[in-house]
């Protein structure tokens, strides 16, 4: 890994550090890839395989076809499954100069209808899998729906000339995970993707020999920056499996000669639990890079992966959709397992500080060329969360003297009880340090005095018994009396949202409904 060459550039009213060797735009990145590596495979998907030259031609055709229907600067929506068309969307929109709302296929048509209402796209482009749901979702707002095959595999519109790519162009909108409240439409810009992608390339030493396994949905920011963008920067290939499940994934990865994976901890937990079989380092000798984020990585999962794949480098990445993925990253070292919540120093070009006295916990703020210009559907919230170029992340943590970031909690998950702040993540970490506990979720619920009470739901390991008193004593002695949960209950599994984050809103609602009001 060589030191990156950075230069100061203006961004969001401040000065940030940008990679000197950056493509001028996302579209120029693809054009450069097509001219440097025309015959290299760019993508292998269930419905087809394209080289960089073929991808470039397909993008031109689709962009021209799209522009024959909508003007530059328009908003469209896409309802597409995990396949070739969805993979090409960011390339097509950047060439066509339009913005695509990426509809999450795990949502219902009514969820789509809400999002369409906010963005009011000129047209909804749906692949055959999603055409009925898109038609239903578009009905209330009267939005036009067209089949992807009529747009994406359009006629040869070679007469269309495109505007030069603009790094500030919003090429996609994605709903941030919305663990609380209403999802917001984060702007994904061509410049933001490029800087996030370059930071990943530099951090992970990605190269044209990399074969990237896309198991996360292509409408998430993770694969958009860490995989779709990075591979186009280095001339590597993205493999889009028809089955993204963790079960059997190691076998599929081995067959595809995978070198690089971006995943969430819950998926990796299933991967190591499901596949206790023979697929190990010998079947996957070339797998060298794994990044994960979006939720705390259980120490056990990281340990199993590190032991089973000795040559694999594991990276815990902290970031948000609003940072186009990465803000900090830390490499896992099995000989010195990280303190819980330690997510490393900022990636190249990014600055992180805590909104507090030096060394004290505070809301983490991020500055960099990869920070989004904001939410398309909420300018007022944008002004609140991006102040002088610093993004308020909503995560509470500390920044050490060495610049390393330690996450303590989501701001909204901090439990306030009797004037004390209780960091739910800290209590969860203590609970899962008990050998009987596989997973823990800690959240606040109202008690009968109008205070927040600490509630814990745990999943026991197979064969383990619940010892409430032992767990209470453990938290009492490690954190303090104020953090001892009012109730510790067990469950077979923890509810999670589509991105694998524990759904604490649901747990809190359940606790408030079932609370004894005596």
């Amino acid at each position: 890994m060589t030191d990156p060459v950075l230069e100061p550039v203006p961004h969001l009213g401040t000065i940030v550090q940008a990679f000197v060797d950056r493509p001028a735009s996302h579209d120029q990145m693809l054009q450069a890839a097509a001219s440097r590596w025309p015959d290299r495979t760019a993508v292998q998907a269930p419905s087809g395989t394209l080289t960089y030259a073929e991808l470039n031609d397909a993008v031109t055709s689709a962009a021209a076809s799209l522009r024959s229907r909508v003007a530059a600067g328009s908003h469209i929506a896409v309802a597409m499954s995990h396949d070739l068309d969805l993979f090409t969307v960011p390339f097509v929109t950047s060439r066509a100069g339009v913005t695509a709302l990426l509809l999450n296929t795990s949502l219902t048509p009514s969820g789509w209808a809400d999002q369409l209402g906010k963005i009011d796209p000129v047209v909804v482009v749906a692949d055959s899998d999603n055409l009925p749901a898109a038609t239903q979702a578009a009905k209330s707002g009267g939005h036009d729906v067209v089949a992807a095959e009529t747009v994406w595999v359009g006629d040869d519109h070679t007469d269309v000339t495109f505007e030069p790519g603009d790094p500030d162009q919003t090429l996609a909108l994605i709903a941030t995970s919305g663990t609380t409240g209403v999802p917001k439409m984060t702007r994904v810009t061509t410049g933001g993707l490029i800087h996030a992608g370059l930071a990943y390339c530099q951090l992970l030493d990605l190269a044209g020999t990399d074969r990237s396994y896309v198991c996360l949905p292509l409408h998430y920011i993770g694969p958009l920056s860490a995989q779709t963008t990075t591979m186009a920067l280095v001339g590597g290939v993205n493999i889009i499996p028809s089955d993204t499940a963790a079960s059997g994934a190691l076998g599929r990865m081995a067959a595809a000669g995978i070198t690089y994976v971006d995943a969430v901890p819950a998926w990796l937990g299933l991967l190591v639990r499901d596949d206790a079989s023979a697929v190990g380092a010998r079947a996957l000798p070339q797998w060298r890079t794994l990044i994960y984020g979006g939720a705390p990585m259980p120490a056990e999962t990281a340990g199993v992966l590190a032991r089973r794949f000795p040559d694999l480098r594991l990276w815990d990445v902290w970031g948000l959709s609003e940072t186009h993925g990465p803000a900090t990253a830390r490499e896992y070292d099995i000989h010195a397992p990280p303190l819980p919540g330690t997510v490393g120093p900022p990636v190249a070009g990014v600055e992180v500080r805590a909104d507090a006295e030096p060394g004290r916990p505070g809301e983490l703020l991020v500055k960099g060329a990869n920070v989004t210009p904001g939410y398309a559907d909420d300018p007022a919230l944008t002004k609140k969360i991006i102040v002088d170029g610093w993004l308020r992340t909503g995560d509470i943590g500390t920044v050490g003297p060495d610049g390393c970031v330690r996450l303590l909690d989501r701001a909204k998950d901090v439990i306030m009880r009797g004037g004390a702040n209780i960091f739910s993540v800290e209590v969860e970490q203590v609970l899962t340090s008990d050998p009987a506990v596989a997973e823990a979720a800690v959240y606040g619920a109202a008690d009968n005095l109008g205070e927040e009470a600490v509630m814990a739901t745990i999943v026991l390991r197979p064969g383990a018994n619940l010892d409430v008193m032992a767990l209470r004593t453990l938290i009492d002695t490690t954190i303090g009396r104020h953090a001892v949960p009012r109730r510790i209950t067990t469950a077979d599994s923890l509810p999670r949202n589509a991105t694998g984050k524990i759904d604490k809103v649901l747990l809190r609602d359940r606790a408030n409904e079932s609370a004894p009001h005596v």
Partner: protein
Amino acid sequence: MTISIADRVAAVINDLFGLPAAALTPDVTLQDGLQLDSLSIVELQVALEDTFDIDLAPGSAALDADLDTDRAQTYGDIVHLVQAAVQRQRQAS
């Protein structure tokens, strides 16, 4: 057969805090033994008052002079306190 006051107190504690009956020995202290914080102990007091329709406020007429909520430290103390308060309540009515 009626349920004893001790069992009903244990049930209130279990409803609120999910503590197993085995943990509720007469000598176990509410604070260090059951790890209840001061807010939880106030909540328990309120819950017991509502369940048994008694007044456990310090100095309340329902209480013996020598048995004060402020000095109740153990689970046994609490059961004793509730039993005494219930009895005085009955005598008064």
